[in-house]
């Protein structure tokens, strides 16, 4: 693409200005300094994209808000079965920043408290499905072209062959509706993604020379799987995990929207949206603010996930 001469001029000025103030020699320091340097480099790669930093800030705020929900919210008692019909369906004002719902409960308080369920769900789902998926993927990849491979991969194909949301809904619908069961439903359809990713990496590096040479040296199977192959999978797993937090929260919100998640009076974002939708468009704040909260929290995790992906990606000369 032909870049205009003006823009080229600008780039050049920037470069000259930058180079004028740069030290002339690379500083080579102690081991400790090198580690610090590596961290700095990782941070550079992460923060290269300003959105990643914004994501990190959002995530930190959401996590802190969830932990200290009882202390920072104006009306912690509104998170439960509280009614105050005198103040019901109040529009956003100084007293209730985001308004109140039909029971007179502060929307802001309920949103902050619902972060707890969302985060709890994301953490538990990933804590269970990632190790399970990773282990099965490693196993299938290592036993490539045996019946173990076939069975594991076909089963994960089956789970991946139904839209994720649909299967989660079906499972959640036959169980009792609550947070635990909706987590279970999501976990059941989440592991195959990790199995597939790890399988891909494992089969490709199984034939690499370092694995073959380890085999020739007589290394045990466990050593090859966990010390030679697993480290190669870590970067894609971590990247996917950091992005998946957002996805799990999204899925959880959807389940709670149809009433298959956290049960009232405990607040959850999806449930607040579906409750509020009945009062549209006049009491719009009951719907819009939980919607925005969902968008912001998911976006925060996605931004951060992308940054982590940038940080872990190898061979991108741009950052070297």
């Amino acid at each position, binding site marked *: *693409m*032909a*870049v205009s*001469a003006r823009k*080229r001029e600008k*780039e*050049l000025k920037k*470069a*000259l200005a*930058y*180079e004028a103030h*740069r030290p*002339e*020699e*690379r500083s080579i320091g102690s081991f400790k300094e090198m580690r610090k340097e590596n961290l700095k*480099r990782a941070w*550079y*790669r992460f923060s290269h994209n300003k959105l990643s930093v914004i994501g990190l800030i959002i995530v930190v705020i959401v996590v802190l808000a969830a932990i200290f929900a009882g202390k920072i919210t104006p009306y912690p008692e509104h998170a439960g079965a509280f009614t105050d019909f005198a103040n019901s369906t109040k529009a956003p004002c100084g007293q209730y920043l985001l308004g109140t719902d039909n029971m007179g409960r502060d929307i802001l308080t309920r949103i902050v408290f619902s972060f707890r369920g969302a985060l709890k769900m994301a953490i538990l789902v990933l804590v269970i499905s990632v190790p399970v998926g990773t282990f099965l993927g490693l196993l299938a990849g290592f036993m490539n072209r045996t019946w173990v491979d076939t069975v594991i991969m076909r089963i994960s194909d089956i789970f991946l062959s139904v839209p994720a949301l649909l299967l989660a809904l079906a499972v959640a619908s036959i169980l009792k509706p609550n947070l635990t069961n909706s987590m279970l439903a999501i976990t059941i359809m989440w592991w195959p993604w990790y199995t597939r990713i790890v399988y891909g990496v494992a089969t490709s590096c199984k034939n690499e020379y370092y694995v073959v040479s380890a085999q020739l040296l007589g290394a045990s199977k466990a050593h090859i799987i966990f010390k030679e192959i697993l480290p190669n999978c870590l970067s894609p797993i971590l990247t996917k995990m950091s992005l998946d937090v957002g996805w799990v929260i999204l899925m959880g919100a959807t389940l709670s929207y149809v009433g298959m998640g956290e049960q009232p009076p405990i607040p959850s974002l999806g449930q607040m949206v579906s409750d509020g939708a009945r009062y549209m468009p006049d009491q719009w704040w009951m719907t819009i603010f939980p919607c925005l909260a969902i968008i912001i929290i998911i976006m925060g995790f996605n931004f951060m996930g992308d940054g982590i992906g940038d940080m872990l990606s190898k061979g991108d*000369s*741009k*950052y*070297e």
Partner: protein
Amino acid sequence: MSNEKTPILEIKNLKLWFKVYKGYSKVLDGVNITVHQGEKVGIVGEAGCGKTTTVKSILGILPEGQYVIPEGEILYKGEDTLKMNSRQLGKVRSGEISMIYQEPSAALNPVFTIGQQMMEVAKNSDQGKGKTKAERREMVLNAIRDVFIPDPERIFDYYPVQLSGGMKQRICIAMAIMTQRDLMIADEPGTALDVTIQDQVHKTLDRLVEERDMALIMITHSLGVARELTDSINVMYAGTVVEAAPTAELFRKQLHPYTIGLMEAVPRLAGGGIQAGIYGSIPDYLYPPKGCRFAPRCPRATEQCLENKPELVDVGNGHKVACFNIEEV
């Protein structure tokens, strides 16, 4: 200096920086290369010394936005390609200069047939403009025939993945010689191939350039290839041309310590194996040496070399060298 011919391309003091982590990597540090009409010029140097970057900057095909050119000019037939607008540059690309890439499998689009790609090049070349499709097809088929590929009709409908490395490299050459150009840039053609095929490719290239009276810039890291194929040689080290001379002259007498080291590193059939080689590796472009870039590896380096950068000066017989301590012969 061959005075009977006019320079077709002059690269003058070209500096180029790439944007990287923590600053700008100063890859080219004042490159000077002159190519005359119909001359075959070699650029020799080790990997990473800026050969490819230099020639890519001639056509302006480096990744946009990732580099800056703080100094220098590239005069093609008297006009600076660095200052051209996209229309002027387009004219140079479509009618004046063609280029062959180092890696033939990377230089061909994997999802289009050879024919589709060559037809596109033909359509956008000065000679192909205004011709009918059938005429252009004939141009393409002739070009494929010219690089000694039998059965061009069949190759026409092949995808790159169906061809061997040698065939792909020939197709790249065919693309470059399909229309009359004044300058051909060959970036290590054949490096990716095995030696016998490489030799065939070089011969084909050499014959076609001679036939068409094109000027050639031949990039290679092999002095042997350069000796066989070129009229003059520029030896590059770490983003600068350290020595330039007519080929025969250079092989008669090397002046720059880097060239001498390079020559000594060539294994000889007469025995003795590889001689000394050159100790060390190319400098960090992010923190380049202040003076001569070869100074840290140079056996003759003095205080002066560490402080100042030597200019490329003519020492007679068209032999130019950038060194403060040329041994008196």
